[in-house]
């Protein structure tokens, strides 16, 4: 580095020191923007990482068949039933398949009545496919088995006493849609309040509860080892189309490989993050305008100094450098503090989420986020400083010297 720059950096820092309040207020605009970017991106990244890991641990050889028109098949008028499941099971390249039902139902414990999700999972040989995906583990009691009618598993929050006023224990009796059920097991926390306050019953008893017909929210299928999931999905699509009597392009169901699910999650994340960063970007723009304003004031106040520096040999380019470095550092120091605040916010959100059962929220701070934010805040500062610095450098020495 040219040794001039070293001095100009020192000068910039000294100038901040002599104008502490103004420097702080100017940097405030950058603090906010950078802190927002860092905390939002870190949480988004953390969440995405957690979800990706979870999906990948399930194995990529699964297909998800859902009725169209609802998220996970919920709230859709299209129905996937037993016949569809049979077709899927026997389709080419499919090792096994299973369907589950899921609905909001009324549950009663003591004199308390509440509504929550109740799912029915198959207990036959397709059980592993579903439970892989749902990734629950038994914390207390036992798992459901075949023939366990009117027995349920309860989510961790229900057992903790966060759902009903009283804690629910293994052996307790509850009513689901006015039918008596016995709690046989408590689940380990899954990581989100909705799952952790829901009940799981056998497919048969859930089907009985929800009107006697099997209307699957989702059918999960495992692909035969060695087959390409996306190719199997294509052929399954044709098979199901024929079975359901719909034309190509007008399917009332959708088949997704986990890769696709992951992709769609990623693109949703990308959109959400872009919007958030866009908003943070606006605040950075405002911060940049703040720097520009401060730099103009600074040029104005230091006109005489600029004249003096020119008189003792400063070229226009020297003055330009001095002011650009000052405004760049105004941005960068603001950015550094902003990063610190952002990290604190990210960690605080992570902590708060963990406290309320959302273990999935992990703030992640990759190096490119930190360095990128720092570089970006320096650029914001420098760009904001271009016009004031040009103005300063073009001042005529005698006019600047005469200026009081």
């Amino acid at each position: 580095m040219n040794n001039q720059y070293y001095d100009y950096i020192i000068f910039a820092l000294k100038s901040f020191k002599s104008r502490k309040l103004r420097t702080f207020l100017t940097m405030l605009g950058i603090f906010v923007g950078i802190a927002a970017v860092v905390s939002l991106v870190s949480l988004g990244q953390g969440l995405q990482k957690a979800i990706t890991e979870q999906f990948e641990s399930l194995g990529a050889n699964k297909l998800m068949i859902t009725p169209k028109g609802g998220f996970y098949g919920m709230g859709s008028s299209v129905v996937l039933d037993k016949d569809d499941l049979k077709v899927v099971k026997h389709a080419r390249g499919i090792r096994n398949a299973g369907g589950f039902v899921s609905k909001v139902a009324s549950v009663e414990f003591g004199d308390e009545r509440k509504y929550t999700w109740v799912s029915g999972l198959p207990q036959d040989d397709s059980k592993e496919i579903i439970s892989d995906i749902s990734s629950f583990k038994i914390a207390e009691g036992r798992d459901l088995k075949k023939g366990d009618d009117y027995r349920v598993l309860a989510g961790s929050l229900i057992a903790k006493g966060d759902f009903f006023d009283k804690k629910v224990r293994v052996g307790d009796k509850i009513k689901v849609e006015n039918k008596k059920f016995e709690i046989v097991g408590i689940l380990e926390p899954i990581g989100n309040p909705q799952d952790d306050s829901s009940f799981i019953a056998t497919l048969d008893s859930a089907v009985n509860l929800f009107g006697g017909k099997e209307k699957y929210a989702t059918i999960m299928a495992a692909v035969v080892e060695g087959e390409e999931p996306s190719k199997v999905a294509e052929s399954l699509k044709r098979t199901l189309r024929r079975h359901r009597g719909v034309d190509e392009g007008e399917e009332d169901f959708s088949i997704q490989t986990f890769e696709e699910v992951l992709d769609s999650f990623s693109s949703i994340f990308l959109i959400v993050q872009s919007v958030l960063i866009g908003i943070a970007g606006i605040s950075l723009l405002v911060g940049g305008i703040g720097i520009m304003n401060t730099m103009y004031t600074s040029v104005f106040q230091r006109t005489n100094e600029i004249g003096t520096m020119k008189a003792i040999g400063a070229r226009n380019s020297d003055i330009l450098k001095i002011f650009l470095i000052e405004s760049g550092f105004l941005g960068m120091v603001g950015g550094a503090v902003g990063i610190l605040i952002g990290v604190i916010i990210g960690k605080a959100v992570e902590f708060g989420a963990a406290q309320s059962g959302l273990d999935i929220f992990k703030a992640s701070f990759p190096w490119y986020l930190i360095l990128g934010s720092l570089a970006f805040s320096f650029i914001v500062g420098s760009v904001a400083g271009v016009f004031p610095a040009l103005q300063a450098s073009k001042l005529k020495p005698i006019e600047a010297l005469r200026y009081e």
Partner: protein
Amino acid sequence: MKRTIIQLKDVWKTYNLGEHKVHALRGASLEVFEGEFLAIKGPSGSGKSTMMNLVGCLDIPTKGTIHLDKHNISNLYESDLAQIRGKKIGFIFQKFNLLNNLSALENVTLPLIFQNIPIEKRKKLAADVLNDMGLKDRMNHKPTELSGGEQQRVAIARALAVNPEVILADEPTGNLDSRTGEKIMELLKQLNKKKKKTVVFVTHDDELAEQADRIAYLHDGQIIKTKRLR
């Protein structure tokens, strides 16, 4: 015969103030010799500062030529002028014009930075000049922590740092009490006698002007006469 270091030939400087034209200099001519201690004396409004600015390469004349050493500086661009004044000229201002954010040492280093002198060398140079000015113990003080006399001595040190050929002082004692002013004048005289620097200073004060080797009288934008004293 002595070598001419500054030469002004029929120099005009006209300022356009709106619709008015103000002729600050109207055909001024003057020669300054190497190693000379020269006073330019004139009433206010006679064009002293304008002349100073032109000789100091801070501005170019509207008409006429100025030579500094061998350079014709009458029609140079700002960046070239900056180069020349940074190397050859040391400015001393009436109001000291020190940068208040910076310590005495840093103020003196400043012109050396603009000359791209390596960091260690410039620190030593600046410390040496400050030492010569008797400011060894005040190097790390800010200008606001120094007395007027000390500030002007820092400014002189700054002017000397690049080892210029010419020292230009614009009413160097104007902001000082008479005793301190005398000391500063003494310092300038020593620079002239011992270090052989060409010193040109501007004043409106008869007594101060009498201390020079020669006085050039400026009146209405022209040098009307010069008087050699010693």
